[in-house]
């Protein structure tokens, strides 16, 4: 029998690789019965999805920038480009 501790590791692994069929079935059966582990999986997937969307939004050129280079940094970099 898989414990919740075992299943959390399998949930994470299943996000990076395809599990052998036996492990996958064991994990899915456990998730059907375990409220906490199935919530854990949903939350990890939500974090993944949210991170992806944030990255996509942040990296759209022309998007109003959140973090910007300070003026000092810009000046320093400009200078270094003039005398590379």
């Amino acid at each position, binding site marked *: 029998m898989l*414990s*919740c*501790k*075992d299943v*959390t*590791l399998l949930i*994470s*692994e299943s*996000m*990076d*690789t395809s599990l052998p069929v036996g492990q996958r079935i064991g994990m899915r059966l456990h998730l059907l019965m375990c*409220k*906490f*582990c199935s*919530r*854990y999986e949903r*939350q*990890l997937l*939500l*974090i*993944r*999805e*949210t*991170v*992806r*969307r*944030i*990255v996509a*939004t*942040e*990296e759209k*050129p022309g998007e109003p*920038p*959140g*973090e*910007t*280079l*300070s003026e000092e*940094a*810009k000046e*320093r*970099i*400009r200078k*270094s*480009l*003039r005398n*590379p």
Partner: protein
Amino acid sequence: MPKPANHDPSEWVDRYGDYLFRYAMIRLRDRSTAEDLVQETFLAGIKDRKSFSGNSSESTWLVGILKHKIADHFRHQARKAPLEESDLREQPDSSPFDGSGHWMNGPTDWGGNPADLYREKKFLDQLTKCLSGLSPNHANAFTLREIEGADTGEICKVLNVTETNLWVILHRARMLLRRCLEANWFEKSVKKGS
């Protein structure tokens, strides 16, 4: 083929500086490192302008250089602070499981409408804080996998770890990050809402 838009490097800082900086910041979470790598990217771009084929835009080409610089930085960090036993083991005092592997404190209900989370500007700040609280190996593995979208073979090479160890590192990183977000974001916003 039309000649690609090709700007003089003296315009690069104003044209691409903030964009590249933002790209670096979300991965490195450190202003001065991010500034340095943006500068190095421009310098490498000047030296290597011939490699700009014009099949992509100039900004995509520069991002490609920056990507390599960031991976080099992670490689360097992994060499400086190689994987430790404690990166792989659960700290006994922080384990959410009892001796038989059952949840002692299960994940709480996050409620609300978490699908819209990415729109909340402050959530990125909290995510950044939580990632900064992880060990560099955990944070960099998570960054490469979830932000960069790298496959695990690539990540093993950058961090110089075996695949089996990487599964454990990613598992630990996700578990710690989830708990940090729960404590500092979700539980607070549930209370705020009620």
